[in-house]
């Protein structure tokens, strides 16, 4: 709370709340709700049972119906709070339901069957998590295999992207040569070319070089990202040429200049690109879908889609798998976000 107060008084100097302080905080708090709300709602929903997911109005928290084992019945029975005709309420277990009438039984007196209209009862529930939403996809689907494929694609594509893009950006920012502007034009020009524009011809090229139905067919077409080259080049332009000249005087070869001087200094930009590359490749959907037809090569996104595309959409599984798909990316982000903040600070040359 003292942090809030010091914020409010720091920027504008006075002890009064400047209107911009109030707007700022409203914006930030609103942002917090709007940005995280949907994801939290997703996580909450992913723990709900199929029956609960179909309810309206939906509950904020996941509940599970209480069940009880009743003598004479093998399976546990669902408990309901029933309003009896005499006005009293009682907790009964449901045996079976026919139309609007349910046959129910008192768990303490298992032989007395009571017929109850379903309008006069409601299930006994407590907060609980339908964890089977998470555990079952591992059994029913090749979830682990998809995960491994996704990790492989993401890691390889990111490494190759960082290396090739930074090399190209280095050449385009620190050398004068004929055709440089043309190359830059090509690269910036293709910034504007969405994958789906060249989807059809790309498909035939990839199949011509024999990469159809291979993870490398997913990786290679994505690594020469114009965005990465563009981003890194803009950053490298800010590295003073004098530093490179100094290295040349220090007997450094051009490769050493790239590797020992420019690359470390471009670390903040590389980190940004690494984050985006990881996220892009992890999240890639359309291209893997087109290239991969063998199920064991599917990435997570494609696997998720296959699941969501089934005739009978099982939301409880989809929501849970969606949450799992989110987790690694969030972890990577949290790790690299810290790295970026420290990386941008403290460069000696101004």
């Amino acid at each position, binding site marked *: 709370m003292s942090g809030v107060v010091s914020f409010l008084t720091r920027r504008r100097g006075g002890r009064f709340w400047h209107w911009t302080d109030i707007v700022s905080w409203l*914006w930030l708090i609103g942002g917090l709700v709007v940005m995280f709300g949907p994801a939290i709602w997703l996580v909450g929903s992913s723990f709900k049972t199929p029956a609960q997911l179909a309810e309206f109005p939906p509950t904020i928290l996941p509940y599970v119906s209480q069940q009880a084992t009743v003598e004479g019945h093998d399976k546990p029975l669902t408990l309901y709070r029933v309003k009896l005709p005499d006005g009293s309420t009682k907790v009964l277990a449901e045996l079976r339901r026919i139309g609007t009438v349910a046959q129910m039984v008192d768990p303490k007196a298992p032989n007395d069957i009571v017929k109850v209209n379903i309008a006069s009862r409601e299930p006994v529930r407590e907060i609980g998590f339908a964890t089977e939403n998470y555990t079952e996809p591992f059994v029913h689907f090749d979830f682990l295999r998809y995960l491994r494929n996704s990790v492989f694609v993401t890691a390889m594509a990111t490494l190759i992207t960082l290396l090739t893009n930074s090399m190209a950006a280095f*050449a385009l920012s620190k050398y004068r040569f004929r055709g440089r502007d043309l190359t830059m034009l090509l690269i910036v020009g*293709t910034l*504007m*070319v969405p994958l*789906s524009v060249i989807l*059809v011809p790309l498909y035939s090229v990839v199949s011509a070089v024999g990469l159809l139905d291979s993870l490398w067919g997913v990786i290679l*077409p994505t690594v020469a990202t114009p965005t990465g080259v563009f981003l890194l080049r803009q950053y490298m332009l800010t590295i003073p040429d004098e530093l490179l000249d100094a290295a040349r005087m220090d007997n450094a070869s051009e490769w050493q200049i790239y590797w020992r001087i420019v690359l470390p200094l471009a670390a903040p930009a590389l980190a940004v690109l690494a984050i985006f590359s990881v996220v892009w490749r992890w999240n890639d*959907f359309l291209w893997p879908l087109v290239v991969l037809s063998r199920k064991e090569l599917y990435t997570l996104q494609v696997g998720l889609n296959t699941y969501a595309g089934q005739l009978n959409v099982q939301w409880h599984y989809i929501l849970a798998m969606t949450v799992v798909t989110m987790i690694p990316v969030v972890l990577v982000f949290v790790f690299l976000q810290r790295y970026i903040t420290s990386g941008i600070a403290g460069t000696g040359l101004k």
Partner: protein
Amino acid sequence: MTAAATLKTWTGAALAAPVVWLASIVNVPLKSWQRATGTGGMAAFFLAPNMAIFGIFVLVPLVINFFYSATSGTAYFLQDRTYVGLEQYQRLLDCGSYLDTATCREDLFWKAVHNTGLFVVVQVAMMTIVSIATALILNREIVGRSFWRAVFFFPVLLSPVVTGLIWRWILQRQGLLNLIVHDMGGEPYNWLTDRFWAFTAAVSVSVWAHMGFYTLILLAGLQAIPRDLYEAAEMDGTKPARVFWRITLPLLMPNLLVVIVLALIRAVQIFDEVYVLTGGGPGTSTLYLTQYIYEIGFASLLRNPGLASAASILMGLVLVVLTLLQLQVGRRGERKGARE
């Protein structure tokens, strides 16, 4: 040094060692290459890997695309297709009035063009304003800036599929939005079956998903503006609004241009999240160009890769113009920073 830190250092060194070793090995042949070809040859070397991949998987398909657009049939390999010249283009451009999609032979294409145009304008405008506002607020001396920055950046990570699914889940009949409407005494509504609300949802969801990225770029630009400029303005008694228009905005311009151009590119490409969210519906109200191209090229029963190619090339032409414009603006900014 603690045991953990020692371990970290050692792991780092162990991981780095092979890479460093590899880099120094690479240096040996490269030095002779440099001696033989000069720095010009080194430029070629540095460009080669990227440009080879780029050439095979971007440029070649781009060129082949033109041949596709001049052929007909449903086969994917060029040799299996029949040459038809400009027929596909004629088909696309055959229109009574370009403003009335019903008069067009390929009315879906023109529907998609109109929808995309509107989407791009509204979405980029909204994106720019929201990102600037957020970046300005994050640039203030707020407590926990990195936390707040992370908050707005968070959705950028989500895959379009996930984003689409999340919002479909929220906007559906039993969704969160209807819960809020219900709690406020309103009637639940099928948001995604309404043309206006579906469009609004498409724009809002895509802004929601990507604004963090642009905010990050703008924030970096804002933090690069020297503090003493603001202090000088404060000494002059400049009003905050004037500081924004005369100092912040002009100095932020390079970053802002990057943001607008990138936002344009993304907006024109819009596909995945809207496709998952609305499927292009209701009707064709959120059918955008990429989806049209994708469906005609791959998905639809009336598959016609040639027509898809022709449509994509028409879209590409518009993008080329935008690119040239951007390059012109960018070069002007760059010349300012050129050395003596």
